[in-house]
């Protein structure tokens, strides 16, 4: 982090010297892990280079801690200059209440419609034909990260797909390795399950269940199979006594755990730890079963402000975030994919290239955040954090509760 600090100190010093009329723009986000902070520094660097001043408002503890603060600030009439949200349905009401700036003019001037790929990203920023946010990256959930060292220790080859991984679990345990790292945070638990749906039952099933809230499918045999797989995962996660997702990733990095199902943001952690894809760790998109990736991600929203100076700074930040150079620099650090197909990611590592290939082939599915409200997601979190921690809950009971939640969703 020292290097990061040096860069940041240097850039602030630089712009303090060059721009006398710098506008301070407070940007709130919840990117505080090593890889995330390195990525956000790229935004700050580029923004400060325009003669403005990025005031960093990081709030640690994830979206659950940060979002109430952001929403309070916005409805309290003292908004920040820009703020991160997961695009999707989290901000619907703030937009309807007229609290967020309409970015359609910038978007049209710069032709976002033509450059942003896949187009669904921009769609989830669009309400009634107007664009309200800037998508900055594509994050996909459907990755299995495996520690090569752990499998070496157990004396077995690194698996190529989920089934082989499940079969390898007993050997890993014998070698004193926890097969599957899974943290305690509720979203990790429901996330894992959603990945199992998307890969084992297929994207169309996920869309039927969450998008169309199809109760028949939710109660049907396809989901039943997913619950059986979740029971395997529950057995395999025993012994991973960690809270945060990156602590779980760290178990994989250090070879204490065999693997982890986690979004591609885990990539950033491997990178910060100096690990090389293919040598130290293996990534299996779509769990090696069904190579699909979801196209969720992060987006920045710009609350309505009166000060024209701040508005100008907001405009600058918005167009800067999608500019090719910044997209490359940011996404390389973050381990996510750029939102435009026309940039060159020659320096991307193996795993990112796999992701780019899948993206280009169009094997994508929407992110769960775009299909479900946060309310439904929280109920799913509650169900799965309990399921993965309590062996007394049978797959049948859990599925019955799952069906209820789907039926209630809107």
């Amino acid at each position, binding site marked *: 982090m020292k290097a990061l600090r040096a860069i940041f100190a240097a850039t602030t010093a630089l712009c303090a010297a060059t721009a006398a009329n710098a506008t301070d723009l407070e940007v709130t986000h919840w990117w505080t892990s090593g890889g995330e902070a390195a990525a956000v520094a790229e935004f700050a660097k580029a923004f400060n280079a325009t003669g403005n001043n990025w005031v960093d408002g990081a709030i640690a503890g994830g979206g*659950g801690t940060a979002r109430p603060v952001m929403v309070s600030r916005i409805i309290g009439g003292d908004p920040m200059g820009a703020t991160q949200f997961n695009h999707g349905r989290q901000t619907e*009401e703030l937009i309807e209440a007229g609290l967020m700036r309409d970015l359609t003019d910038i978007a049209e001037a710069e032709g976002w419609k033509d450059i942003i790929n896949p187009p669904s990203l921009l769609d989830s920023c669009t309400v009634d034909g107007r664009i309200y946010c800037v998508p900055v990256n594509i994050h996909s959930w459907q990755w299995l990260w495996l520690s090569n060292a752990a499998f070496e220790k157990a004396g077995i080859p690194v698996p190529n797909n989920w089934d082989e991984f499940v079969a390898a679990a007993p050997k890993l345990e014998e070698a004193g390795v926890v097969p599957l790292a899974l943290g305690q945070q509720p979203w990790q638990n429901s996330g894992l399950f959603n990945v199992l749906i998307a890969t084992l039952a297929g994207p169309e099933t996920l869309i039927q269940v969450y998008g169309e809230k199809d109760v028949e499918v939710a109660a049907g045999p396809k989901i039943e199979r997913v619950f059986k797989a979740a029971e395997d995962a529950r057995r395999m996660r025993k012994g991973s006594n960690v809270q945060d997702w990156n602590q779980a990733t760290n178990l994989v990095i250090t070879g204490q755990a065999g693997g982890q199902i986690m979004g591609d943001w885990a990539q950033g952690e491997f990178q910060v730890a100096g690990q090389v894809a293919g040598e130290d760790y293996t990534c299996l998109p779509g769990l090696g079963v069904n190579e699909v990736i979801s196209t969720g991600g992060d987006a920045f929203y710009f609350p309505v402000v009166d000060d024209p100076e701040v508005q100008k700074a907001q405009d600058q930040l918005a167009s800067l975030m999608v500019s090719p150079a910044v997209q490359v620099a940011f996404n390389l650090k973050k381990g996510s994919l750029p939102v435009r197909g026309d940039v060159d990611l020659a320096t991307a590592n193996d795993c990112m290239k796999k992701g780019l290939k899948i993206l280009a082939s169009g094997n994508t599915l929407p992110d769960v955040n775009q299909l479900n*409200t946060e309310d439904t997601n*929280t*109920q799913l979190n*509650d169900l799965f*954090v309990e399921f*993965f*921690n309590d062996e007394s809950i049978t797959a049948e009971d859990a599925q019955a*509760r799952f069906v209820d939640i789907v039926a209630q969703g809107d």
Partner: protein
Amino acid sequence: MANDKPFQPFRNLNAKIASIPMILTALVIFVGCTLWTIFYSFTKSKLLPKLDFVGFDQYERLWGTRRWLVSIENLLIYGSLSLIFSLLIGFLLAALLDQKIRFEDTFRTILLYPFALSFIVTGLVWQWILNPDFGVQHAVRSLGWESFNFDPLYNANIVIYGVLIAGLWQGTGLVMCLMLAGLRGIDEDIWKAARVDGIPMWKTYLFIVIPMMRPVFITTIVIITSGIVRVYDLIVAQTGGGPGIASEVPAKYVYDYMFQSQNLGQGFAASSIMLLTVAIIVIPWAYLEFGGKRRG
């Protein structure tokens, strides 16, 4: 202050002016916001409060949610144990310190200092001490007792007791102080008389001293109970509600549903139930205790 209530309006006026902040707080914040909350619990407000009435739907959903039921159960267990043990330990500690001992100041400071630390800090430290890979379990095992098992924070059946250990550590110091203050208020002659009559010490405490300390107990119970109902930070810092949902509490349910899941209606319904429960217990009692004509 028996029977000297001022009647002249201009004198009352000063007192009333001085009480404006309190009146405003009581009416606008505690009554106003409470009514506002109850009112909106009958709507299906999501991220922002909206007047979209759905009757008792939010309440029906609330009582059909497993996590809420677990939360209530936890609060009952944690609450009753915490209240009993705080009072018991607090009183015993105070009685010990009241034995005219040396270094009383030192002991008292040691018992009281945890209260200066926030629940966030308390939760973190105890999370660590109770962590099976680093803390007590690890330490005992490395002494040679390999099969020793003590991982309350990772065992859904006993996690709430793990939280209780931390909560008591933080809070008993204050209770001890209150009790000690109460004991110091007991006239020395009472002790002498009891001794002359040959009443054993424990009996003197139980039947003479404790009944005399009723006001202290009441203040203490108000302080402990209000802390219990609001318990949130400790859970968040120590267990995050886990493992699974085994250590969830109502205040966390309210917070999570209001903010994380952006379902204000559901959060308001849950908080209304909490308020209702508190009101049923507190209002009649508080009125008897503070509002009666005992002194006025």
